[in-house]
């Protein structure tokens, strides 16, 4: 569903699929501005602290926008609006689930993470434990999340650009790859952060203008819009529908949505870009406000597209419904507004892949090269060089995989990436912060189990067996394994820790706990 772009012949009534001058102008403008930002940032990026963490110079407000930018992917914008436009209420399950992860990050993760770590969430997990095994296990979870998410974004970007600008799929993928490598390679975290801020501003204003134009037709009353949808397509669109037919599936999906945010490496990395824990805390507060507001807007956009464009017309352009928001823009503001929204959607993907690439490069360089291969003995200059090589490598991998998976249904890869974040990364991170008895063996088994079990169970689930491989049944009944894998990852992390350590835990406040509240 989300970003599974399956273009059918474009309906004759829409300009989607033809080269759009306005879209081109906006898009070239966005590239020009972001490359200028990159040039500016490149002159300020000399050390690893600059490259990974923007020299800790980002303010709480800026980081709030950047977090929102990292999180509001095309899956949120095009996917949720599309889901609402074709199913109604069901899109709200995703919106609320993705939002409630943010308060959890604020209460449990943001401040300890900033105080205990340096560049990656692995710093925190490995702090009290043996470096090598923990770094390797966490890097596997990070890279699995990053690469699966990258594939989904690249395939989405290729299809989107083809559909909106009339460019060849392969050309589009190479453009995205080249731009993202340029941002990260030269401008590091500083450029990536400002690309996110520009994109978040564009996306929020685009969605707000669209929502206001929709509501203007319904006396500025959302309920009147919903009533119009119900009058046209039945009361069913205002209630939970087919997406969640099985109760356990619903709860499992809810768990995955709620706990993935706290395990997404490119989100967690952002907390190191601010000066201290207080700024980290405030930035999540701002991000929660912005993202919640955005999800309320997408709900209005989805229903607007349902009533004004119609589900059949939307599915005629793209079976997955992803063109709902662009079609709505065309209906309300003609080809120029379509062009603007198309460029915004593209900017959205570009910014997200840049953030992902940077966090993948940090895992390869900081976690694997410096702390595993070089036993923590590498110089800053060497680490920076390796991080830049890793950036180019990941960029090339993303382009190659994006072209390899052309035309495939990769929507499940987003949920797979999020499920690994929730089951592989989050439990070990939370235990390492709050549970003193965690041992190296416990942390490693929790991370390895969470990642492997998620991959295996999703392969055996109806998502792959029925939807992709077209088998009649699946060995594992749940579409999303989170209901099983999250609690089991916690249980295995704790169980193995208790078995592998007989040492009594020191009384009083440990150095770790002091650093957790005070920083260093």
């Amino acid at each position, binding site marked *: 569903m989300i970003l599974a772009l399956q273009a059918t012949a474009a309906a004759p009534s829409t300009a989607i699929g033809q080269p759009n001058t306005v879209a081109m102008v906006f898009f070239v403008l966005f590239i020009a501005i972001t490359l200028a930002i990159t040039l500016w940032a490149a002159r300020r990026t000399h050390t690893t602290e600059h490259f990974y963490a923007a020299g800790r110079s980002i303010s709480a407000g800026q980081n709030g926008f950047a977090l929102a930018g990292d999180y509001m992917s095309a899956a949120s914008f095009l996917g949720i609006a599309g889901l609402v436009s074709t199913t109604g209420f069901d899109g709200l399950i995703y919106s609320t689930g993705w939002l409630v992860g943010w*308060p959890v990050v604020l209460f449990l993760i943001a401040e300890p993470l900033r105080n205990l770590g340096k560049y990656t969430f692995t710093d925190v997990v490995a702090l009290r434990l043996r470096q090598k095994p923990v770094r390797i296990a966490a890097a596997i979870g990070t890279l699995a999340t990053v690469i699966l998410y990258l594939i989904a974004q690249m395939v989405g970007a290729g299809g989107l650009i083809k559909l909106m600008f009339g460019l060849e799929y392969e050309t589009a993928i190479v453009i995205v790859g080249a731009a993202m490598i340029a941002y990260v390679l030269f401008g590091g975290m500083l450029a990536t952060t400002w690309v996110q801020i520009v994109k978040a501003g564009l996306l929020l204003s685009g969605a707000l203008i669209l929502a206001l134009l929709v509501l203007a037709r319904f006396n500025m009353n959302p309920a009147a819009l*919903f009533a119009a949808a119900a009058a046209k397509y039945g009361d069913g669109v205002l*209630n939970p529908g087919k997406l969640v037919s099985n*109760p356990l599936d619903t709860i499992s999906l809810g768990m995955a949505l709620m706990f993935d945010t706290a395990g997404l490496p490119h989100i967690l990395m952002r907390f190191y870009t601010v000066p201290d824990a207080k700024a980290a805390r405030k930035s999540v507060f701002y991000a929660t406000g912005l993202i919640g507001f955005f999800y309320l807007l997408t709900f209005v956009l989805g229903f607007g597209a349902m009533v004004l464009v119609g589900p059949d017309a939307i599915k005629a352009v793209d079976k997955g419904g992803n063109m709902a928001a662009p079609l709505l823009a065309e209906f309300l503001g003609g080809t120029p507004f379509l062009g603007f929204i198309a460029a915004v959607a593209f900017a959205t993907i570009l910014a997200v892949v840049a953030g992902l690439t940077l966090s993948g490069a940090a895992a390869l360089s900081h976690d694997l090269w410096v702390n595993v291969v070089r036993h923590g003995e590498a110089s800053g200059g060497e680490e920076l060089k390796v991080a830049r090589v890793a950036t180019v490598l990941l960029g090339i991998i993303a382009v190659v995989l994006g072209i390899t998976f052309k035309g495939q249904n990769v929507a499940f890869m987003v949920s797979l990436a999020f499920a690994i974040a929730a089951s592989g990364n989050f439990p070990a991170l939370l235990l390492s912060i709050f549970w003193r008895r965690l041992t190296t063996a416990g942390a490693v088994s929790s991370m390895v189990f969470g990642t492997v079990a998620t991959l295996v169970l999703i392969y055996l689930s109806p998502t792959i067996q029925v939807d992709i491989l077209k088998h009649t049944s699946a060995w594992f009944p749940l579409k999303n394994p989170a209901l099983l894998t999250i609690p089991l990852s916690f249980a295995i992390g704790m169980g193995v820790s208790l078995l592998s350590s007989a040492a009594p835990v020191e009384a009083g*406040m440990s150095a770790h706990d002091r650093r957790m509240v*005070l920083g260093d």
Partner: protein
Amino acid sequence: MAQDHDALRDLAAARDRIAVALTATMIAVYFGFIALIAYDRPLLAKMVAPGLTLGILLGAAVIVVSWLLTYFYVRWTNTHYDDQLAKLGAATGRSSTEAP
């Protein structure tokens, strides 16, 4: 000195208690909503106003509750936690290697 160390530990424990309570509230609110979707659809289908079902209203309420909980936490830390933390941090020494 020892008193300051105890006070720092108590302050950290107070933050953890509030963080855990707020997390539990968030989980209860969201999974309450999800449980209704899973087990009581007729209730969510009730119209509270023309065009507005209870389900949509509760979905929007989950978003508003998220905002309120984050606001409550940030206000508590800004007014109570940060000042005391700065005082106790200075009193007990910033060096994190010192044992209590």
